[in-house]
């Protein structure tokens, strides 16, 4: 039996390596450091993430395969890595003061976040279904622990348990789908699956496998029939982790979905687009309608995150170059505006999560009130914020591909969403403050993260062209 040495290429996995090494370093330092010296751990972590971000940018505009065609470095994966890494950066920066407040400041927290980011990056730049599964598992296992990080809080325990059970179930679906695809095409490599699907005959197994993969990834992106874990998990998990779950894994799931659906199964677009059409409509409508009646802001943003998954699915249905680039632009914009909104909830703490607690916020913390209003406007899709441009590109790509009906349903849905986003703004601006608690100064790093996300939201809204060109340059060649 011949044996091939895998073509190891450390250059193309350098961002992943940086993240991995920093995560291991934090894990080693955690038990060694005592007391106050542990304060350097978050700083090591975010510097590592920033270094990885720099290394991703240096790898831009290169296309290389490695590790026996399992790993691909292209602009598509780089763009998604930029999304993951900026999300992670924002979450790490904003959770330093939160962890101290909640008395759960442990080094493992940062280590697990970095491992989860590593898993996402693996998912985005993999060309093999098995490696996609590996990345998904690395990411998910870390998130299950992180969701239960407030160990003494029952809701956090519940959140972790629910996320674990449903996530394990979803992984089973995904793996079963991969097995079916392997049975049908004799390969787990997406390129070989692509060659197979361009043939004349497609066995039934192929579609069963694709359906199961859609179910498995549907759980991760929280699309309609697979969304039931979202509100409970988002409510119970520590708020920075909620922000993390709602941006990173969702984008990672979409990166895998885009690669599988529009790359490997691109030639069968007619067959699967109708299924996604229905899923997109149901996801948007369900998320938006249920969000109307929420009184807890974390649950409200959970349902809003379901709705946003629906908007991105619209771009997937549209397909083609404009569909891919608009989905990527949307996910980038969503990362900034969503984490931005969560940063303010992080600052206000775990006890103030009811909408009534936000009344008169703007008189107490004018800066926070105004920025939260900005993020709410952006989530609702008002110009000149990134949410508007993102929705504009998604819906215009749908119209370009001839899905006018879907675009109309999407726009109607964003009208519905305006009600609950603006309700938060109304409560903040037009009601008297409820309590006269002492005002706390905004911590430096949390403020920095807030500034960064405000910049992202406004830059992508006012000058979207630079990032849109970036997204358009990073489309993988469909087939």
């Amino acid at each position, binding site marked *: 039996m011949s044996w091939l040495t895998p073509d190891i290429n450390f250059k193309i996995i350098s961002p992943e390596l940086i993240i991995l090494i920093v995560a*291991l370093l934090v*894990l080693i330092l*955690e038990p060694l450091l005592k007391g106050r010296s542990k304060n350097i751990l978050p700083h090591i972590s975010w510097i590592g993430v920033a270094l990885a971000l720099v290394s991703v940018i240096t790898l831009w505009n290169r296309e290389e395969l490695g590790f026996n065609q399992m790993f691909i470095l292209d602009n598509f994966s780089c763009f998604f890595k930029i999304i993951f890494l900026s999300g992670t950066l924002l979450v790490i920066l904003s959770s330093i003061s939160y962890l101290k407040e909640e008395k759960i400041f442990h080094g493992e927290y940062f280590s697990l976040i970095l491992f989860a980011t590593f898993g996402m990056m693996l998912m985005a730049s993999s060309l093999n279904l098995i490696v996609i599964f590996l990345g998904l598992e690395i990411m998910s296992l870390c998130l299950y622990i992180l969701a239960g990080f407030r160990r003494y809080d029952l809701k956090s325990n519940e959140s972790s348990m629910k996320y674990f059970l449903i996530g394990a179930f979803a992984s089973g679906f995904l793996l079963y789908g991969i097995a079916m695809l392997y049975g049908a095409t004799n390969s787990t490599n997406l390129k070989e699956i692509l060659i197979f699907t361009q043939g004349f005959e497609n066995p039934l197994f192929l579609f069963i496998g694709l359906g199961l993969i859609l179910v498995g990834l549907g759980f991760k992106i929280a699309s309609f029939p697979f969304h039931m874990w979202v509100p409970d998990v988002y409510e119970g998990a520590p708020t920075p982790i909620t922000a993390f779950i709602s941006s990173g894994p969702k984008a990672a799931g979409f990166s895998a979905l885009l690669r599988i659906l529009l790359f490997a199964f691109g030639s069968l677009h007619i067959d699967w687009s109708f299924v996604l059409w229905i899923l997109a409509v149901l996801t948007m409508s369900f998320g938006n309608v249920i969000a109307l009646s929420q009184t807890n802001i974390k649950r409200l943003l959970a349902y809003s995150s379901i709705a946003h998954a629906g908007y991105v699915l619209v771009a997937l249905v549209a397909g083609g170059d404009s569909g891919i680039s608009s989905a990527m632009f949307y996910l980038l914009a969503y990362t900034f505006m969503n984490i931005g909104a969560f940063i303010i909830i992080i600052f206000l703490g775990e006890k103030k999560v009811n909408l009534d607690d936000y009344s008169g916020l703007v008189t107490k913390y004018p800066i926070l009130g105004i920025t939260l209003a900005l993020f709410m406007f952006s989530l609702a899709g008002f110009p000149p914020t990134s949410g508007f441009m993102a929705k504009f590109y998604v819906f215009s790509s749908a119209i370009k591909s001839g899905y006018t009906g879907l675009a109309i349903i999407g726009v109607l849905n964003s009208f519905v969403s305006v009600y609950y986003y603006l309700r938060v703004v109304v409560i903040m601006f037009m009601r008297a403050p409820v309590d006269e608690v002492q005002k706390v100064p905004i911590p430096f790093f949390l403020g920095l993260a807030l500034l960064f996300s405000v910049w992202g939201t406004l830059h992508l809204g006012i000058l979207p062209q630079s990032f849109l060109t970036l997204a358009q340059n990073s489309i993988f060649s469909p087939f």
Partner: protein
Amino acid sequence: MFKTYFPIALLLILVLGMAFVIVLLSRFLGRRIPSKDKLSTYECGIEPTGDARGRFPVKFFLIAILFIIFDIEIVFLYPWAVVFKKLKVFGLIEMGIFLFILLIGYFYIVKKGALRWE
């Protein structure tokens, strides 16, 4: 497709039928003399003591979980040792990296005191 899977289906039917027939036969042909000892829970021939749903320290659980990690390490090491000569230096380095990452985990466990019983 039918032709290739037919033997497996046949085997499945045969096996199910066999199991069914044997259980049925022993039920009808065998003599049954139930006694108190025969009807009690089987616990390796020792008289059962107490309830199976007793509580025991969570430390056992932790040890069991940690055991699995290092057990799997052995599972990886064994086939590696078999093909070691074919893999040459590459295999040595790969396994070195694998063990190094596991050792970091071990270091973390020991330092955190997860193996201390008291």
